């Protein structure tokens, strides 16, 4: 169980990215995190991997306050809570295969289990034939899919997906959503930030909407707000 209790995050330069956020996400849930650009979605997710710590308030995982973890416990947190990064964060001097395998290596997975797992993950995102390419030889969407493969390969108990379909066409996006939903079915909690209204509306899952660092909506079976409205009022 994930709990945010009065969480406020103010960055060193004075920007308030989250302001007194309270919420609870149960194990096994599938949650969409929506909101306009700069609303605080990435900040929300980063708090869960302890990439940042809250300025005030507590982020609880189970009963542990994540900010209070000892430094040497952090790597183990990050093996349970995997993130699909908005900016991919691939290692430029490793091939696609090794970028994905790396996530298993660090968890000290038995070597003989690594190859089949990696190959399966790459197949899920449709990159079987790019295994030996380096990140800068990939298109934007392909890099994004490598980052997804790396996050799902170890069957994490919590999967954070930050805008995982931003660079993908709708068809590939649906393929990715299928993967995420399947993982969720197996019991993994999935929190996904997205701007893709088609997907949000199509899946009817829980939707948490952030605006300016505050939670302004929390719907079971929500839709992406505002789409209809904007679809009608065309510019130009």
């Amino acid at each position: 169980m994930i709990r945010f209790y009065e969480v406020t995050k103010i960055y060193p330069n004075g920007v308030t990215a989250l302001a007194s956020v309270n919420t609870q996400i149960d194990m096994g849930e599938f949650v969409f995190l929506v909101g306009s650009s700069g609303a605080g979605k990435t900040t929300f997710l980063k708090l869960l991997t302890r990439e940042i710590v809250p300025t005030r308030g507590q982020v609880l995982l189970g009963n542990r306050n994540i900010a209070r973890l000892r430094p040497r416990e952090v790597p183990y947190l990050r093996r349970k809570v995997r993130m699909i990064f908005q900016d991919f964060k691939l290692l430029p001097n490793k091939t696609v295969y090794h970028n994905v395998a790396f996530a298993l290596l660090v968890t000290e997975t038995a070597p003989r289990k690594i190859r089949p797992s990696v190959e399966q993950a790459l197949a899920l995102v449709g990159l079987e034939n790019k295994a030996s390419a380096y990140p800068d030889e990939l298109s934007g969407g392909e890099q994004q899919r490598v980052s997804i493969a790396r996050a799902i390969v170890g069957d994490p108990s919590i999967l954070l997906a930050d805008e995982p379909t931003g660079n993908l066409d709708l068809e590939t996006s649906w393929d990715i959503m299928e993967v995420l939903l399947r993982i969720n079915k197996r019991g993994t909690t999935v929190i996904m930030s997205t701007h893709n209204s088609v997907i949000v509306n199509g899946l009817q899952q829980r939707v948490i909407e952030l605006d300016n660092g505050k939670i302004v909506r929390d719907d079971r079976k929500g839709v992406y707000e505002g789409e209809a409205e904007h679809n009608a009022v065309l510019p130009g």
Partner: protein
Amino acid sequence: MRYFLAEGWGSARRNVSLISLGTMAASIFVLGVFGLVMMNLTSVTGHLRSSIEIRVYVEDSLQAQGLEKLQQEIESIEGVDTLTFVSKDEGLKRLTSQLGERSGLVDILEENPLPDAFDVRVMNADMTPDIASSISDLPGVLSVSYGQGLTEKLLATTRLIGVTALILAVILLGAVLFIVGNTVRLSLVARAEEIEVMKLVGATNWFIMWPFLIEGMIVGFMGSSVSGISLYAGYLACINRVAPVVPFIPIIVEPAPVARLCTGLVVLGVLMGVLAGGVFVRKHLEI
């Protein structure tokens, strides 16, 4: 473990490139050249200092027994190493050969004007003046000569050379440590991002650190080996040509001490590499 070695080696090959390797090699080479110069300098000044001796002229009145007593007294002075008796006849022979061209001068002498003497060697050349003055106070001693003036100059000079060489060694070693450390670290800066990603993916600090340590070790070993070996081979090749030209300068020609120096350099290189790699990751891990 296999992973770490493979990783360290692989990334050493891919990333560190020739720059830190070259810097390591160049620095170690300079250090080695300096070390060789120092070794030879020490050998030369040591030779010079060991050639200093005190000539003690004995009063003619002294008989065999008196001579023996004086000898014992001199030997009992602290710092005196060995002592040789030089009879007046032998003294004249030596003087004749010292005067060289002008030895005609001696031939016209009717009688040997020289007294008997002792040649005294001291343990530490720096003590020569003090010991000489102690000897001159002994009864039966006519006069004491150790090239007063010249010897003091020689001693001061060798001391100056020694101190200068030591200061230079410290400066050079400091500079090399600084330069090599920084170069290895700079060559790793591009990989701060890699460390960041590893941390985000859940790698433990040790897991991240090992490849860097091994990489540092490899770079240190390879860089210093290159210069250690070329220094060893180059020095011995050179010296075998130079030594015959200046046979009177006691240059070091045996391979053993040179080999020791070069081995020391390789060890130093490896240590520097590992240290630089270690310090770098530690900093970026913010442990």
